C-alpha cells in the first residue's frame, strides 16, 4: 500500500496514557480509601475524573488528531449540560427545602396546623 490509512500513531503513546489512566484510577480510589471529606474530596474527585475523561477522549479516541470541524461537533454541544446541571441544583435545593418544611416529622409548625 502506498498510503497509510486512518489514525496511525506510535505504540508508545498508548502505553503512556494507559499507565496514566491506571495511576489516576488508583488516585481516585485512594480519595475514598483515605476518607478525604468536604471540598478537598470534591476537588480531587472532579480533577481526576476530568483528567481521565480528557485522556481517553484525546488519545484513545484520537480527538487531538481530528480536524476541528469534527472536534467542535463533539465537544461544544455537551457544554450545554453545565446549564442543565445548574437548573437541576436549583430545583433540587428548592424541593429539599419544601420537603424539610412540610414533611419533616419534627416540624412543630405543621403539627400545630393539624
Amino acid at each position, binding site marked *: 500500500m502506498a498510503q497509510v*490509512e486512518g489514525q496511525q500513531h506510535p505504540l508508545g503513546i498508548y502505553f503512556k496514557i494507559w499507565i496514566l489512566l491506571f495511576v489516576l484510577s488508583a488516585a481516585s480510589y485512594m480519595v475514598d480509601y483515605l476518607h478525604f471529606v468536604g471540598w478537598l474530596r470534591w476537588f480531587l474527585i472532579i480533577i481526576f475524573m476530568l483528567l481521565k475523561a480528557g485522556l481517553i477522549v484525546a488519545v484513545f479516541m484520537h480527538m487531538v488528531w481530528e480536524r476541528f470541524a469534527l472536534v467542535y461537533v463533539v465537544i461544544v454541544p455537551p457544554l450545554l449540560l453545565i446549564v442543565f446541571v445548574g437548573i437541576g441544583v436549583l430545583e433540587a*435545593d428548592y424541593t429539599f427545602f419544601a420537603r424539610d418544611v412540610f414533611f419533616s416529622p419534627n416540624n412543630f409548625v405543621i403539627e400545630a396546623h393539624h
Partner: protein
Amino acid sequence: MTQTSHATTADSTELLRGTAGVIADWSSDQRAFKRVPWGKAMMWIFLVSDTFIFSCFLIGYMTVRVSTTDPWPNPSEVFALTMFGEKIPLILIAIMTFVLITSSGTMALAVNFGYRRNRKVTFILLLATALLGATFVGMQAFEWTKLITEEGVRPWANPLGAPQFGSVFFMITGFHGTHVSIGVLFLIIVAVKVLRGNMDDERPGFMTGRPQRYEMVETMGLYWHFVDLVWVFIFAFFYLW
C-alpha cells in the same frame, strides 16, 4: 501525511487548519468531515446523543439525591467486600474500574494493530477486550445479586435509606451494563470478521455490501472507549460522592 484516510485519498489538496479550517470544511459544499470515514463520523454523532442520555440520568440522579430528606447509603460501605479477613471499602468497584481501563488499553492497541494490517494480533486484542468486558459485566451481575438478595435493595425500595438510591443505582448501572454487553457482542463480531480476513480482502459487508476496512475496528473502538468514559463519570459521581 500519515493520517490520510482511505476513504478520502482523493483529496490531495492541502486542507486549511484551525478556525479557518472549520469554516472551510463546513462551507465546502461537500462532506463536512474531511478525512474521516463516514462510519466513524456517524459513530461520533451517535456518541454525542448517548452522552446526553447518560447526562440526563446523572443529572436526574443528582437532583433526586440533593432533594431527598432520607439518608443516602454510603457507597463506600455498601460496595465493600471482605477479602483476606479484612473489610476493604469500595474494592469491587475499584477492581471493575481497573478491568474496564485495561480493556480500553487492549482496544486502543487493537485499533493500532488493525491499521498495521496485523490480522492475528488485532484478533487476539479484540478478543481480550471482549473477555475483559464480559468480566466487567460478570462482576456487575455479582454486585446486583448481592444488593438484591443480601441487602434487599429494589428499584422502588431501599432498606438502607433513601429509596431513590435503588432507583438510580439499577437505572444507571443497568443502562451502562447494557452498553457493555452490546459492546462485547459487537467486539466478538468484529474480531471474527478480522480473523476471517474480511478487512484484508475488503469483502462486502453483510448488511451494507460496502467493502470492509480496518476503519471498522477504530469505529468499534470509539464505542468501547465511550463505555469506559461513561464509567469514569459514574465512578466519580455515584460511587465516590
